[in-house]
């Protein structure tokens, strides 16, 4: 079918602002990605996959400006013993970053390593992204593969002695950024990756993670608290036998955030957990779009998404579990819930199961509700003021998602941030 003219025009307008980087091992992948974007066009309002979230802000030729957010609290994870990699408006800042040396880990900057002719990342860059384009296309991710010039390439060969933290700073109100990270986890390797801070006015982020047999990848991401942010992120992961993958995202604020997570369980006995807790107030749209494919025996996957919405904020969840023929003994779980703190806010959810194996256990549930009045009265009757009681119940609503974070210290820090977010809004 021919592409609608409007979509074609929008895609052309966006592409006209970009120029394809040339040279180095990534060039072929970039050209291929550009061809794919041209073939599908960027997401449009009529696309089924963008039914609940208008892609316009994310596809516009130029980004809307976003005010620089002045943080009034210490940086998230600031106290964690970590190897810090800093990006300012999407550009790696070596001076602000730690030394890249870490046992069992090789860290390189895409902008530098990209000019080489041969590199391990060549086998992964754009490869997992392409795999994630079927059965649903994700043109923003292809756009990123084509044009992203910075990011990190991380090769983990054993147990990383401490977490790697990607710390983002937004300093130019007009910055429009694409970052592409590639992570290769060798068999048995272990890594915790942290991400935090406002990236840019608009950002398009892709992370490709190859988790080999028995490797364990832990990811904890905090988006926000910048209010005018427009973000499209994609995580593409491929999981080998007995590997473990965990990703948790806390999102606070931002006018538009679409987080896509595409995971393929390709080795037996692998496990993937994806969780998110988002808190939106006012002009806020947050979309979690998750696609988990089970293509091996006895794998487990778990999706836990919680959204707290107030003052007309919108939450979207599209989550799918696809169990391929032969993927017996699959254990798939998915829950998406919203807590609507007022009647103006809304939650739109599309949970899906598609199963081609007969010996599987899959469940999904989606709910939308208000604060439990009986519980609220109970707390107040014991002397807990209305605002604090509401916050306690809100945190308890979010708890199931936070519990997906393996490290207790990181989980605690997330809860503290959530408490603070709520306390700032307490009437």
């Amino acid at each position, binding site marked *: 079918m021919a592409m609608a003219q409007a979509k074609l025009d929008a895609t052309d307008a966006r592409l006209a602002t970009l120029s394809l980087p040339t040279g180095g091992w990534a060039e072929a992948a970039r050209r291929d990605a550009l061809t794919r974007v041209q073939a599908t066009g960027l997401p449009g309002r009529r696309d089924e996959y963008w039914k609940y979230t208008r892609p316009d802000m994310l596809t516009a030729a130029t980004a809307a400006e976003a005010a620089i957010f002045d943080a009034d609290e210490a940086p998230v994870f600031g106290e964690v013993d970590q190897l810090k990699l800093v990006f300012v408006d999407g550009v790696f800042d070596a001076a602000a970053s730690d030394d890249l040396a870490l046992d069992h880990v090789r860290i390189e900057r895409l902008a530098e390593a990209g000019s080489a002719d041969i590199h391990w990342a060549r086998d992964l860059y754009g490869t997992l992204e392409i795999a994630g384009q079927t059965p649903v296309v994700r043109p923003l991710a292809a756009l990123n593969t084509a044009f992203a010039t910075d990011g990190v390439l991380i090769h983990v060969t054993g147990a990383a002695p401490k977490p790697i933290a990607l710390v983002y700073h937004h300093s130019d109100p007009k910055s429009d950024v694409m970052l592409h990270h590639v992570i290769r986890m060798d068999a048995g390797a272990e890594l915790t990756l942290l991400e935090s801070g406002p990236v840019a006015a608009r950002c398009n982020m892709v992370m490709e993670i190859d988790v080999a047999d028995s490797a364990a990848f832990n990811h904890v991401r905090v988006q926000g608290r910048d209010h005018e942010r427009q973000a499209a992120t994609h995580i593409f992961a491929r999981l080998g036998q007995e590997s473990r993958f965990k990703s948790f995202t806390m999102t606070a604020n931002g006018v538009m955030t679409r987080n896509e997570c595409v995971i393929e369980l390709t080795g037996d006995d692998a496990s993937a957990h994806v969780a998110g807790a988002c808190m939106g107030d006012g002009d806020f749209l947050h979309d979690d779009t998750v696609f988990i494919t089970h293509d091996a025996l006895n794998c487990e996957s778990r999706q836990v998404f919680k959204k707290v919405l107030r003052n007309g904020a919108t939450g979207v969840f599209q989550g799918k579990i696809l169990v391929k023929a032969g993927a017996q003994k699959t254990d798939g779980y998915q829950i998406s819930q919203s807590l609507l703190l007022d009647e103006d806010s809304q939650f739109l959810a599309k949970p899906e199961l598609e199963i081609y194996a007969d010996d599987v256990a899959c469940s999904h549930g989606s709910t939308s509700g208000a604060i439990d*009045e009986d*519980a609220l*009265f109970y707390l107040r*009757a014991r002397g*807990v*003021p209305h605002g604090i009681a509401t916050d306690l*119940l809100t945190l308890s609503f979010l708890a199931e998602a936070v519990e997906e974070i393996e490290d207790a210290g990181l989980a605690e820090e997330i809860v503290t941030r959530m408490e603070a977010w709520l306390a700032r809004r307490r009437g």
Partner: protein
Amino acid sequence: MLEIKNLHVELEEEDKQILKGVNLTVEAGKVHAIMGPNGSGKSTLSYVLAGRDGYEVTEGSATLEGEDLLDLDPEERASLGLFMAFQYPVEIPGVGNMTFLRTAVNAQRKARGEDEMSATEFLKEIRAKAKELQIDAEMLKRPVNVGFSGGEKKRNEILQMAMLAPKMCILDETDSGLDVDAMKLVADGVNALRDEGRGFLVITHYQRLLNHIKPDVVHIMSNGRIVKTGGPELALEVEENGYGGILAEAV
């Protein structure tokens, strides 16, 4: 202590009158009991006093030590010293029992302009009180009332009461669902709190509880009113003959 005058209450949602002129005064240091048939309005009275939404007071007043209760938020009433043990304690998943109680204790202290209780002090006190009520440490850590048996929920109410040390305690059928031993524990918990400065309003269907918690005054409530008031012998009469005679006489 607690003074209720000519209290008339309707449901907000439907045009239904439930309390039709309740008059009741509980003096400091005294235990009053209310008995009465199902649906006579006993729980409604305790909810209205505690400040639950959904009721409209159309006439009358309720004061605690002279302070008008009816215009206050539930938390303000609690901080003034009013406590209601729920007939059906609410389960709150995700909120730890300890966190909840400590938040409550300190919120009340703050509202009264007192110093907050330190974590160690709180822990020491709650452990001692939980032990008396045979509530184990593991139960304290669990989310509020989640997975508690009926009897455990009721004991948890008494634990909260003991920690909050209120001036006026309303117990709505705290004995129902309790086995004989648990009833004794609960009664001991209540008796331990009895003192000059504290009033109790004990709602019950059974004389048995009143053997353990000796009331000074017994009221019979029927159809939204207190229809008879007497001494402890009134409870014995109900136990023996039911409400028939008393209600016929009251009409």
